[in-house]
């Protein structure tokens, strides 16, 4: 990936987002369920219903609706939620931090777990136990995050009730913070009582999201480590009598990191997409859980806003990974 390629990708972002917006918009307009029918109070007159339709712009032709919505979206106005009666932008702003904190914690857990597994695997290389590690990694990779969520919920929420299985924080704890990044802010402010309660609620969903991703990190990193270990420079270092940890740290690891970030980084989007169901299962108040409610309530503006939010996150993540690889790789840094 050269810098020119990154610029080309940047240029392609706006048309991709418009494509996403168009598809979602058209899709939602063929929904059989009527969002207005779900929000009218009993005894509303047909005139009231017409009034509401006009208020949300649902009486206009699709193209006209899209142009109106798109024009407002460009100015940062994503409309009002039909089911919650609030601005979509405000709703996403309030809930997004919860999802980002969860995804961040999950990524951290996954990277640490994946690295440890890869190092164990590479240490056991050529022995029978290596097959055991590889097999275990295969199983963890095959079972997706939402199944881990259900398994963890059963194991550590119900059978051995160690951790809470629902919500972002205990309702009795008074959270008076400025931002919605509760965890980051409470850590920065030194409010460890709040941080502690938050982490307790986040552990199960975060581990569920982390497990398949950690297996992926372990698999790619182990293959890259094995590759780097076989290279001449590593063999020469060994012949010169350097110890294994030293060779690993100075020669093998830095070279194995690049393919791991390049291949694994792209998959962080999978982890982010997984938050939709995992948040649902643990009743965690992020944008994923809100998205499912929005679909069930046929809340068009909210669904549109949320899918676009995910799309922006996905594209931004992919680009960040490309940049990171370009920075890590000396060949690209100077190329």
């Amino acid at each position, binding site marked *: 990936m050269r810098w020119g390629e990154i610029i080309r990708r940047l240029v*392609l972002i706006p*048309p*991709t*987002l418009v*494509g*996403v917006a168009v*598809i*979602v918009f058209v*899709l*939602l307009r*063929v*929904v*059989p*369920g009527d969002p207005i029918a779900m929000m009218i109070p009993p005894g509303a007159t047909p005139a009231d219903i017409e009034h509401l339709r006009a208020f949300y712009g649902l009486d206009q032709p699709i193209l006209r609706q899209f142009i109106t919505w798109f024009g407002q979206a460009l100015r940062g106005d994503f409309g009002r939620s039909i089911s919650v009666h609030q601005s979509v932008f405000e709703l996403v702003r309030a809930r997004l931090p919860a999802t980002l904190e969860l995804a961040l914690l999950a990524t951290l857990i996954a990277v640490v777990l994946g690295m440890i597994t890869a190092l164990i695997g590479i240490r056991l290389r050529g022995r029978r136990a290596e097959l055991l590690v590889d097999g275990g990694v*295969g*199983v963890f990779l*095959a*079972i*997706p995050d*939402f*199944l881990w969520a*259900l*398994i963890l*919920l*059963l194991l550590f*929420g*119900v*059978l051995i009730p160690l951790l809470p299985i629902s919500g972002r924080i205990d309702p009795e704890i008074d959270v008076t913070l400025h931002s919605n990044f509760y965890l980051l802010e409470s850590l920065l402010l030194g409010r460890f009582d709040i941080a502690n309660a938050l982490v307790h609620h986040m552990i199960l969903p975060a581990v569920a999201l982390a497990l398949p991703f950690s297996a992926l990190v372990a698999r790619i990193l182990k*293959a890259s480590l094995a590759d780097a270990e076989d290279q001449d420079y590593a063999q020469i270092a060994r012949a010169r009598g350097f110890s294994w940890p030293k060779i690993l740290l100075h020669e093998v690891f830095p070279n194995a990191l690049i393919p791991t970030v390049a291949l694994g980084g792209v998959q962080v989007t999978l982890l*982010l*997409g*997984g938050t*939709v*169901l995992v948040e*649902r*299962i643990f009743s965690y108040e992020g944008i*994923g859980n809100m*998205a*499912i409610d929005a*679909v*069930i309530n*046929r809340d068009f503006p909210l*669904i549109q806003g*949320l*899918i676009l939010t*995910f*799309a922006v996150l*996905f*594209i931004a993540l992919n680009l960040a990974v490309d940049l990171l690889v370009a920075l890590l790789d000396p060949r690209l840094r100077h190329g």
Partner: protein
Amino acid sequence: MVDLALDRAAGPSSRWTAALRRGGPRLWLGAALVGVLVLVALAAPLIAPHDPLEQDLMSAQLPPAWTSGGDAAYLLGTDSLGRCVLSRLIYSARTAVAVALIAATLAAAIGIAFGLVAGSFGGWIDQLTSRLIDVWMAFPPVLLSIVLAAVIGAGLTSVIAAIVVVDWTRFARVVRAETMVQLKRDYAAAARAIGLNRGGILRLEILPNLVPLVVTLLAVEMGIAILVEVILSFVGISVASDTPTWGGMIAEGRQIVYQAPWIMALPIACIILSVIGFNLLGDGLRTLLDPVQRR
């Protein structure tokens, strides 16, 4: 690469047995798990001890038969409406297998068609397909299938459509790249030299070489399709609500997880076995069909 050369030299029959031995336990375990799943689905009316919809409120939330308070008539217990959990698990396999087979095959067919066209024509057609795939990749897949299923309405068709529309890109991306690689090979040039047209080269030369790749992807996609069906029925927008599904059973079990944890645990176990079965089968098939891709 050394043992690759040996494989070629050793001739077809011994290569076949060698591959069988290599694909070995994974292939057979995978095939066995998938085989059992398909058999259970086909023979559901014969092996299910009860009607999966038959309610018996007098014996609701019975634990499995071997625990205290269990009833020998209900081997794996009953749910909150007194329906036989074992029978519901067995009948749920029917939906899972139907979705896996149909959705994965359709997604493969569409994806392969797009991939072949993009990979062989190149130019603006490739550009257009690639941009389309870009747009698709920007969607959160789970959310997109939930929205799609909600849009089309409950039913088997809508579940299948949701999976096909979301997952065709998996095949399209791989087939496009592989078609480009294969077209650069000498044999494709040779086929052009003897006067085969583009369609002929694709059909006679390229497609057969894509088979190992596609079969592997197909097995994995079937596992994914089962998972998506579980997700949709868990959220409550899959097939009609009276059809038993693993996802629906999990959602019902989640409500009474403290009183009857086995109702949630059992469908999870079924799903894990099925998905691991399809993954092992895909892994095994890859080693079996294509020694080059052996890891």
